[in-house]
């Protein structure tokens, strides 16, 4: 079972991101479960959403305490909420930011995990380019597809088209695709850096 | 029947059907009337509500050719009309709860609509307690949605069935079990009461009317008028209660008439929030004539009386007359 935890703030589409991820997994013939952790809904308040993906029926309902994947939609959360709590040593981390892990002040934390699985991507900026609004949720899913290979970009695009329509859907698909490329390149660079 | 024929007879209060052509006679005059509230019910001698309900429901049955369903609130009418294992009702009738009658009516109307039974109409009826107090929320909801229900309130101005406790329809100064005639301001002292007909008008519903058991033709005409339109409609009927009002059982109709003639109970019609007709007072009388036969106002009179409270009641009646134009300047 793959457990993904998405952190963000109210209004950034954190819950939709988890839902789209579950739809993408369903597209690929897998079982998926997505649900939010509810606080009183308020724009700007920290929000967490969860997604489980498996090849058999998912019966577990507890919040994801030991995620395999962490997606952080808003870097201002990094020093406010312990987003890394419970993250598996082999875990993937994708953070929405122009800056690198080191520049974000996460160098220490990074040492606990596999550094080639820790990626930042400027999702808000990419979204702004394709959507006119800095809504990073679907974009980050494109990045996640590249980072982990655990969902395909096609499935992500399908999920986006189920949730949105018309220009908004296309914009999100384009943005997700760009994020996919950006992350792919970043990973290649990281691999090079290691071998150098 | 477009213009109600007004009768003015001295010395007797008979309705005088024999002077009208057959199609203008009251529903009650006909042996073919549905008698929807059949005899055998357990109402008190002189009960205004039993009279009002029989008049109103029979009129509604005629107007709908018997295609009528009634919802009834808890209260005197419900209790005395269905003493287990008997029922007086000759039409389909449901009693649910005290405060939900308007909503039950909404549900029945919705069922008729969805089943395409557009000719089957719905009335919801209750006393003042079930209408102005506990039923107020559901009533307002029904009005706001303009559901196709005629709501009839039989107002005897207190919770009679439970022992005469005050409701928001209890008039100023009236003695009830919870507004006793003791102290410096005896009887009910809460403002001027909740004016349901005007609140109904504020919802801009198609038809609102007030009536009393003193004028059978008027009441029947208003029910017929109400049933000729669709949407939310409200009829407020003053029904004296001999027990609760402390009046003689033979005075029920007379007191209802006096309530109108004093201006205490304005009789009018309104459509979409505008008054469209009023019943003029032919022979205006001071409020004392109306209040004296009722023991619930006895504390206002006599050596330990309250002329100031009497004056307030008179002033309220005067205001009603002015506001609704109940007295023609010429006639006065």
């Amino acid at each position, binding site marked *: 079972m793959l457990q993904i935890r998405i952190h963000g703030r109210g209004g950034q589409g954190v819950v939709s991101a988890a839902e789209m991820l579950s739809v993408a997994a369903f597209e690929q013939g897998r079982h998926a479960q997505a649900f939010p952790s509810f606080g009183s809904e308020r724009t700007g308040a920290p929000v*967490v959403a969860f997604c489980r993906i498996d090849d058999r029926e998912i019966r577990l309902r507890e919040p994801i305490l030991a995620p395999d994947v962490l997606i952080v939609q808003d870097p201002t959360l990094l020093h406010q909420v312990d987003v890394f709590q419970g993250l598996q040593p082999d875990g993937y981390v994708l953070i929405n930011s122009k800056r690198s892990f080191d520049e974000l002040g996460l160098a220490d934390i990074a040492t606990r995990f596999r550094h080639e699985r820790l990626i930042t991507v400027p999702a808000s900026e990419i979204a702004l380019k394709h959507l006119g609004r800095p809504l990073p949720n679907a974009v980050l899913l494109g990045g996640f597809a590249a980072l982990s290979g655990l969902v395909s970009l096609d499935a992500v695009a399908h999920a986006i088209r189920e949730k949105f329509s018309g220009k908004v859907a296309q914009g999100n698909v384009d943005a997700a695709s760009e994020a996919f490329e950006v992350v792919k390149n970043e990973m290649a660079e990281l691999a090079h850096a290691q071998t150098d | 029947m477009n213009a109600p024929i007004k009768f003015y007879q001295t010395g007797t209060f008979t309705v005088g059907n024999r002077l009208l052509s057959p199609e203008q006679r009251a529903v009650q005059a006909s042996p073919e009337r549905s008698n929807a509230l059949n005899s055998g019910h357990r109402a008190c001698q002189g009960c205004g509500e039993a009279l009002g309900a029989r008049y109103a429901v029979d009129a509604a049955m005629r107007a709908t050719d018997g295609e009528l369903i009634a919802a009834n609130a808890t209260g005197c009418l419900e209790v005395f009309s269905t003493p*287990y294992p008997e029922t007086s009702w000759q039409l389909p009738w449901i009693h*649910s*709860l005290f*405060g939900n009658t308007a*909503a039950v009516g909404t549900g*029945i109307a919705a069922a008729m609509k969805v089943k395409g039974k557009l000719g089957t109409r719905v009335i919801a009826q209750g006393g003042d307690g079930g209408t102005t107090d506990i039923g107020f*929320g559901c009533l307002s909801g029904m009005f706001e*949605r303009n559901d196709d229900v005629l709501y009839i309130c039989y107002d005897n101005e207190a919770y009679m069935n439970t022992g005469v406790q005050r409701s928001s329809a209890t008039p100023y100064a009236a003695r009830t079990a919870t507004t006793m005639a003791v102290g410096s301001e005896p009887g009910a002292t809460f403002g001027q009461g909740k004016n349901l007909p005007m609140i109904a008008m504020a919802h801009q519903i198609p038809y609102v009317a007030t009536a009393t058991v003193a004028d059978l033709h008027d009441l029947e005409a208003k029910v017929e008028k109400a049933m000729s339109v669709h949407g939310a409609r409200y009829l407020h009927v003053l029904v004296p209660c001999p027990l609760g009002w402390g009046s003689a059982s033979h005075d029920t109709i007379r007191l209802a008439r006096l309530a109108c003639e004093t201006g205490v109970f304005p009789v009018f019609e309104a459509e979409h929030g505008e008054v469209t007709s009023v019943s003029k007072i032919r022979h205006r009388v001071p409020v004392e004539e109306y209040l004296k036969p009722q023991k619930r106002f006895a504390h206002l009179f006599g050596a330990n009386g309250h002329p100031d409270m009497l004056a307030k009641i008179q002033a309220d009646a005067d205001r009603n007359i002015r506001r609704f134009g109940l007295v023609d300047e010429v006639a006065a």
Partner: protein
Amino acid sequence: MLKQTEGSHAVAEAVALCRPEVICAYPISPQTHIVEGLGELVKSGALTPCEFINVESEFAAMSVAIGASAAGARAYTATASQGLLFMAEAVFNASGLGLPIVMTVANRAIGAPINIWNDHSDSMSQRDCGWLQLFAENNQEALDLHIQAFKLAEELSMPVMVCMDGFILTHAYERIDMPTQAEVDAFLPPYEPRQVLDPAEPVSIGAMVGPEAFMEVRYLAHAKQNQALLRIPQIADEFARRFGRASGGLVRPYRCEDAETIVIALGSVIGTLKDTIDDLRAGGMKIGVLGIQSFRPFPLAAVRAALQGAKRVVVLEKSFCVGLGGIVSTDVRMALSGMQLHGYTVIAGLGGRAITKASLARTLTEAAADKLQPLTFMDLDWPLVNRQLEREARMRRSGPIAENLLRDVGTVASKVI
């Protein structure tokens, strides 16, 4: 057809397939998505003929359903928590009159303190009113139970509550298999009322009944629930044959055959329990879980039969009888009278507190070793509670309890769980 969708949308679609004729709805978290979904289907014409009425309160919602059902229409509504309480008078009225209304209860805690998260206190507060109460383990069962509920309700002429955990199920995206209209039509015939307001055959419904017959009328409600004990498994079997999956029924045992310890639970926590049981079994413990799908009527015989070989029963419930202990466990105890079993009540998840595999494993391990107290509150913060009790002992003006506790707990938003 397989879909990945939110629980409430699945329920809305399933209810629509049942051809409801009058839907009346008042919004309350967490059921709102269900009625919004249905409202859209009616407004777009996809669900027709159907009257969708936006009522002004939950009391009105149940009252409109009463009027509609008494007039012969298939009626549906949904609520939760405070809303269920607000309509309580009408809830009793509906079952007292024998009207086959179906209502979704998106289980949510009852205040004060106000709490929008899941537990079973709402439907439990109405467990004696005569409504049948069915509990869904997951979203597939939630949608299936609504289809079964209409059939059950109309056959018996009794209203049915379908309970699904608020947020945990209503707001969870899961894979579900949605039946076709043809499949539902074949399973659920049009509503044929036992009593109906019809000018062609007038009846009076809702008369006062005094001491001479009241007991008999109430007994008949009980007799109907006893009939339901037979019909519920039969309907579930028919459903399984037509739709190809097990859903509903009275109870569902999981790995109980040779279990020494059996955990009893209702609703979505059964899923988490199954995973926990698998882990514990792998470690050698002989443990199983018995899910209860029908809470009212309470399946005394089925529960008793399932527990025949066990040494101990742990009732894990999201409900609480203040001043006594468990609600479900009290009912279970009735099923086990005369049997020699250790009984444990574990109150968990009140007000939406997460029930984790780790806590369950720890608690059940203690139970299996008979080291558990008869009544425990899982994951209760004892220092927090004790601090408040001390505070109250020290001073009269100790302030609102909730405020004091929240101040002690600290900023909730900075926590992950």
